[in-house]
């Protein structure tokens, strides 16, 4: 079912580890859980400092993840 998955996209140096395209994975309840799942699946991510955005909102601390959410792995910005 579509609503029980979430979409993960990566940016900046995280694309080196994670690849450029988005992936779909089973829904998890919150961002702390997601970080654990990601670290297990992509061990090299441990070396990349990043924050998560949930549906384009910066997630600080542990945040709930709604089903169907788009989650972005965002290393430090370097625009400008």
């Amino acid at each position: 079912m579509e609503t029980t998955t979430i979409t993960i996209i990566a940016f900046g140096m995280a694309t080196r580890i994670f690849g450029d395209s988005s992936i779909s994975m089973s829904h998890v309840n919150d961002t702390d859980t997601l970080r654990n799942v990601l670290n297990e699946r992509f061990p090299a991510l441990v070396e990349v400092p990043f924050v998560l955005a949930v549906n384009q909102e910066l997630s600080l601390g542990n945040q709930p993840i709604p089903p169907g959410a788009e989650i972005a792995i965002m290393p430090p910005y370097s625009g400008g």
Partner: protein
Amino acid sequence: MSEMKKIFKQGPIDPAFVGESIAKHQSKTAIGAHAIFLGQVRADVKEQGQVAWIDYTAYEEMAEKKVHEIREAAFDTWPLTCMHIYHSLGAVKAGEISFFVFVSSPHRDAAFEALRHIVDRIKAEVPIWGREVLDDGREVWKENQ
């Protein structure tokens, strides 16, 4: 000022485009001061080599929302007449311009303060990434302070 404006341009920002943007303001005769910031790609020398170009990517939709928020906050804070913000995506060579912020107001203090504030916020809060490509083809991810 609540429609969402496009900020991204493919490739470098042409200096002539800056000139044309300025020219468009000559009918706005309440303006007394324009303040402009341009970010130019530096040929920095790194441990691994010299920067030849930067490849910019962004989380575009989130970036446009964030810039919109910064823009609205600036209009609420200072008496500004106009504001234009552009950022490059894709390849921008050393010496070319990747970032253009243009603020206009009746008097200069508002323009100076708003410009600096907007540039600082965009660098800190807008999801854009630059991959620095060195002259030998190797690459380094840039990080804002």
